[in-house]
């Protein structure tokens, strides 16, 4: 037990939290940006899977990390746009379209894998991987240095993406439009904003974020593609973004909370605790955090509503 506590409060544990959080931060940002535009995107699971696959295949055939990255991101944009096409143009329910996308991703990647490898074992394809990156100055800081330095470059990209998300969302005209469309599409339309186009852009950007998450899984975390390897991270991202109110810092913290809880379950998994219980901890944490969150949100709203009622009553009183 003491050795477990030692290892939980260790540099390696905190390092692992960042590593586990990375493939959640990316899709959570993807969920957040579509949520800001007024859509719930549960298709990140499929987008991640397709990008994870595309990256591996392109890296093997071109031996270029850059091309693999570009192809992976392009596949993410493409499937983000495809989701937009089904929802915005063909008026399909976006939840159903996303479910279809997830099924398609699962089947398509397996099918193509068999076609390309001739049915050989998936591990026979060795992908290029993104390098790890040690930050010279940061490294020398005690405790913090070893935790923050030496990560896969995609982990740093994930944190940068949070910044990018903030800038796009709150400092650019596109961000303003996305928020306007999400909060009141009719008002946005009345000032000449092409609502569908803005929603499509949001979905395409979410495809970029999702693709980066998928690429990290197959080309950073491990170095191959295997079937359904995203394993639910695209769905956890929905909860993480929701917890963070789709704001940049909130989404980051939401993802990292899941990363923390997941890493915790990994470290306590080797204790003699029933594994079903251990595996349910992240979900229990979700329920608890969402409950606390909504309770906190609910209270002021009630107060505000009561306040408004009082004001109205007062105004009414003056009139008569």
């Amino acid at each position: 037990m003491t050795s477990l506590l030692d290892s939980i409060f260790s540099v390696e544990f905190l390092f692992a939290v960042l590593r586990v959080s990375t493939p959640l931060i990316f899709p959570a940002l993807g969920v957040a940006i579509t949520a800001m535009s007024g859509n719930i995107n549960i298709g990140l699971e499929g987008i991640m899977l397709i990008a994870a696959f595309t990256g591996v295949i392109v890296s093997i055939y071109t031996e270029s990390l850059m091309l693999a990255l570009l192809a992976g991101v392009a596949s993410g944009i493409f499937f983000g746009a495809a989701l937009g096409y089904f929802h915005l143009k063909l008026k399909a329910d976006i939840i159903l379209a996303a479910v279809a996308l997830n099924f398609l991703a699962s089947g398509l990647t397996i099918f193509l894998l068999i076609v390309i490898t001739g049915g050989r074992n998936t591990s026979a394809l060795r992908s290029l991987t993104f390098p790890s990156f040690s930050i010279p100055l940061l490294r020398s800081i005690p405790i913090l240095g070893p935790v923050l330095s030496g990560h896969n470059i995609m982990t740093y990209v994930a944190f940068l993406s949070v910044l990018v998300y903030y800038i796009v969302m709150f400092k650019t005209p596109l961000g303003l439009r996305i928020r306007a469309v999400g909060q009141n599409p009719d008002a946005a339309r009345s000032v000449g904003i092409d609502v569908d186009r803005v929603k499509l852009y949001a979905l395409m950007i979410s495809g970029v974020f999702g693709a980066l998450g998928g690429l990290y899984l197959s080309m950073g975390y491990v170095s191959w593609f295997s079937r359904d390897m995203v394993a639910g991270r695209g769905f956890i991202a929905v909860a993480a973004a929701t917890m963070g109110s789709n704001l940049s810092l909130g989404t980051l913290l939401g993802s990292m909370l899941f990363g923390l809880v997941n890493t915790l379950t990994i470290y306590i998994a080797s204790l003699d605790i029933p594994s079903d219980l251990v595996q349910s901890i992240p979900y229990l944490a979700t329920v608890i955090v969402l409950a606390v969150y909504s309770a906190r949100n609910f209270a002021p709203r009630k107060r505000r509503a009561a306040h408004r009622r009082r004001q109205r009553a007062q105004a009414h009183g003056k009139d008569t």
Partner: protein
Amino acid sequence: MKRILMLAVAGLILVSGISFAGGGQEAASDSTRILLYLNGTRGDQSFFDSASRGIEIVSQQFDVETRIVEGGYDSSAWQPDLAQLAGGGWDIIIAGTWQLAEYVQDLAVQYPETTFIVYDTSVDYSAGDFSNVYSILYSQNEGSFIVGALAGMLTASDLDRARSGNTIGFIGGMDIPVINDFRVGFEQGARQVNPNVRILAAYVGNFNDPARGKELALAQIEQGADVIFAAAGESGLGALEAAGEQNVFSIGVDSDQYMLLRDSQPNIAAAVVTSMLKNVDNSVVYAIERYLDGTLAIGQAELLGIREDGVGIARNENFERIVPQAMIDELDRLIEMIDAGEIVVDTAIGQ
């Protein structure tokens, strides 16, 4: 033009259909006709290659007629494939893995004249009259006992990858009886040779999350483990990678994972000291041999362990390179003891 093409295609289909049906009825020869149906393709370097190898050995050793049909990975095609093949008048149809067990159950009732053999799974004998189905199960607990003993010796050794913690790790796919059967065997084997060994065990929760498998293995290594045994499918591959990166030992499962990874992922493969094998090939030969003798226990499930060569360990070049002769001798001694019934390995199945 189009019509001619259509006619040609229709004709082709007709002809091929006839030849297929004809192929099914050429039961003129007296030799036993054996069909192996794979719900996948050859070249997986695992179960299906092993089963095919068994059939090839059978066809060389005995006067039998054999055929292997590769069903591919489209699960919706397996049931109709099998149903069509079952009508072909085969004496024996072999189909493996739990995914086909249910289909075999249906067909066994329809074709009581045909003997069905399923491997690595069992039909549910309480669900009907399956007096023409023989099920092969593998004693993964016995195989795991041997790799557990090896792990117990490796962690106590002063070999390159061994550390001082006297700790080993088990990573399972899910907390289910068949996976726990690996675990209890592994733990018993390790304690047999190293009573004080500390054993960490964790479950991924699925078989398709290599990232989480890797993370679990890294955490175990962090807690002092220097031998990782992963029985977790694709998730387990992540654990093998962790062992390769952290320069400790790993043990593969089901097929020889060193050979599988040697060319594509050499640094992962180098850590895979051995794998706990399910010898599908031997079990197929074992079953056919007894079928021809008339001693095969058709209508039952049989558990093939070390004695029957149903399970074993991979003794490849990496194993020979890493494991000292003294340890190999000890492993052989333990195998003999299990053979002779002097050691009874615990099981997690049926409890």
